[in-house]
């Protein structure tokens, strides 16, 4: 990708983010500073007042009390387009991302048709560019139709910019196929992201296997279904050394397996999702389909283990698994309703609640889990993503960490409303987002699209 396409053209105004707490997880900067965005990039950072020259016509944004950080990256979202545009489109999903503080997302290939061809990857890229909202990186399917039977053209998809491969939504259940996929991904230096679920152990399962599923008469989904796949894949990967990523890790046992593999030097990473940090299987009581998710909500012990895993570095990053579904679909009975919940617009304060307000980690680590760590996972850190490198990085998020607000899914930009956190009182909200130097979230609001159309290429990279 050419350097020039990282930046917008020069007709953009410049912005001075004044007096905020600037946190760059790569350089280690964590100080009150002014940050200048000009010519589409971070043009200067100064800890002394008026330390950066202010270009003519520069928009000054007061950031006192706010965090000024690299644009947040969510490496696991479902944008539903093509094929299920009644749940979400690339444009609405990319707008929801911005509203939540995310300048970049990586979308999953479980669409209809599946994103398993270079042309489908390019379709998503074109739709995202036309939306002028968040950057949308594309994860391609590892097997044709995500059916786990025939290798998808991963080389060709890489050549048009697919950043990762996964059959997300389904696990690659066959060990033979898994070995082939790991070999191909390793040769392409792309991460493989596994949806860890042995289908023979989850048949009929709709929630965590335990007392509550037994009492409600619902099919149980045991943690071991996730754990056996992680164990198997780590063994399979010894001969390939592919970058292997565990999606939405949900159990204490999984944390232990990943911790051991990382200690042994295996190239394994893992993500946790907001709902697995804050909700237990209790949320499924009363057959609450908003709490039906894959993998399922589990127990307090699992939450504790996941947070410990985040603290000790076993879990390397955070991801929402934003999974929109129409209200009519979630209104079905618990067994028939689809798995999944949306997360882009409420994830930030939920992460803060589970991890920072609880004292587990500080803001700088949380920012790293949301910026440079996912950038490394997707192999986009070399393009200035996930950091605040002067002259190179071009995406910035401003967060007001003390802003108190009530989650109201009716106000979401997402097309869907399936959020179990609706009504929660939380703290922390993104107030500004800059993508390619362009102000796409201004004082907590999405500006009219008209202000950004007609500009230069707006592709993911």
């Amino acid at each position, binding site marked *: 990708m050419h350097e020039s396409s990282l930046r917008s053209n020069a007709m953009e105004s410049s912005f001075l983010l004044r007096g905020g707490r600037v946190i760059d997880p790569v350089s280690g900067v964590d100080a009150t500073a002014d940050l200048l965005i000009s010519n589409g990039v971070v043009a200067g950072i100064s800890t002394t007042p008026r330390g950066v020259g202010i270009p003519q016509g520069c928009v000054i944004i007061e950031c006192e009390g706010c965090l000024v950080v690299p644009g947040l990256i969510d490496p696991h979202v479902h944008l539903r387009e093509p094929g299920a545009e009644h749940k979400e489109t690339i444009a609405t999903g990319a707008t929801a991302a911005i509203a939540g503080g995310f300048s970049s997302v990586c979308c999953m290939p479980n669409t209809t048709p599946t994103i398993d*061809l*270079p042309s489908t990857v390019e379709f998503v890229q074109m739709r995202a560019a036309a939306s002028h909202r968040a950057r949308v990186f594309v994860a391609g399917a590892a097997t*044709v139709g995500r059916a786990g039977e*025939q*290798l*998808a*053209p*991963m*080389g*060709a*998809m890489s*050549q048009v910019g697919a950043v990762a491969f996964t059959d997300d939504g389904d696990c690659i259940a066959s060990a033979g196929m898994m070995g*082939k996929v790991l*070999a*191909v991904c*390793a*040769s392409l230096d792309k991460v493989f992201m596994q949806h860890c679920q042995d289908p023979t152990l989850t048949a009929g399962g709709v929630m965590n296997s335990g007392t509550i599923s037994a009492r409600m008469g619902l099919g149980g989904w045991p943690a071991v279904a996730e754990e056996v796949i992680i164990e198997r894949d780590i063994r399979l990967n010894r001969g*390939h050394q592919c970058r292997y990523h565990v999606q939405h890790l949900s159990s204490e046992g999984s944390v232990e397996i990943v911790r051991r593999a990382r200690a042994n030097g295996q190239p394994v990473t893992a993500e946790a999702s907001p709902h697995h940090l804050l909700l237990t299987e209790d949320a499924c009581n009363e057959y609450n389909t908003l709490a039906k998710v894959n993998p399922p909500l589990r127990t307090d012990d699992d939450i504790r283990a996941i947070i410990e895993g985040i603290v000790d570095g076993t879990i390397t990053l955070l991801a929402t698994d934003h999974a929109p579904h129409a209200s009519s679909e979630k209104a079905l009975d618990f067994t028939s309703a689809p798995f999944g919940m949306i997360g882009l617009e409420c994830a930030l304060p939920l992460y803060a609640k589970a991890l920072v307000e609880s004292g587990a980690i500080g803001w700088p680590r949380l920012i790293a889990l949301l910026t440079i760590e996912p950038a490394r996972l997707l192999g986009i850190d070399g393009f200035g993503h996930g950091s605040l490198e002067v002259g190179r990085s071009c995406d910035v998020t401003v967060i007001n960490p003390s802003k108190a607000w009530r989650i109201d899914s009716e106000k979401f930009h997402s097309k869907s409303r399936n959020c179990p956190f609706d009504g929660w009182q939380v703290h922390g909200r993104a107030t500004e987002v800059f993508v390619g130097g362009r102000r796409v979230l201004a004082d907590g609001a999405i500006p009219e699209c008209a202000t950004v159309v007609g500009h230069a290429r707006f592709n993911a990279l």
Partner: protein
Amino acid sequence: MADFLTIAGMSRAEISRLLEATRKSVPIAEGRSPNRTSLNGRVIANLFFEDSTRTRCSFETAVHRLGGQVFNLTPSGSSLNKGESLVDTARNIECMGVAAIVVRCAVSGGAKMVADGVKCPVINAGDGRHEHPTQALLDVSTLIEEFGSVEGRTVAIVGDITNSRVARSATHALSTLGAHVRLVGPPTLVSKAFERITKGAGSQGQGTVSTMSNLDSALEGVDAVMMLRVQFERAAGGAISSDYRQMFGLTPERIAKLAPHVVILHPGPMNRGIEIDDKVADDPQRSRILRQVTHGVAARMAVLEDLVGV
């Protein structure tokens, strides 16, 4: 030499001797020099338990050029269809007084089974995914005609390495003769283990063997490119994806970047439009694919004379 089963285990001198005999037989194979009589009165049996065009016909032609007689046994119309085993069939044929048996079979190690079961010399014309030693002679002979010697030259062998007896035999021959071999293909069809299949590869006087999965970088600095057929009949289909041509096919765009002296080989039959484009296969400057066929007759003459010639 009692049998001719593998290139693996042959010394540089042994291979060179057969290559020299091949070179001398080329004018006869071309029909430019008179036939010889070294197989006069001898009958050679072609036992082809697996399909073949080039190999079977060139063994037949080679026998004719040497004044011998040859007959073919193929599965259809034989008791192989009634379940008679490879070795039992060969033993019966031997008792008809043949001077040598040429055998092709679908099982790796099948040629040695036959050789262990009969007393007459056996020539391996391809056993499963194991070896195809006369193919290696013709491949190297074609390259020697081009370059004078293969020592120090770099040859990329591209494609379905795992399923290829051609790749294995060529790798043994080339590296023993001091050429550097790059085995290139999808990682699902090329494993690191191939770097160690040839004893002594990389040691004094021997060429190196490396494995690569990026064709464009593998083509940098090569002297010859040997394309392999994707062997769908050997389950290679499950190991490749629809971007095979884009990632591993030899296209006009790719050969445009090669140095002028680089030549292209293919053992046939070709999957045109998959591993090789028409314009490459038929490129008058670079393609030596049909020249290989002529060397095939010469190589088989050399081996037959060596084993049973008088």
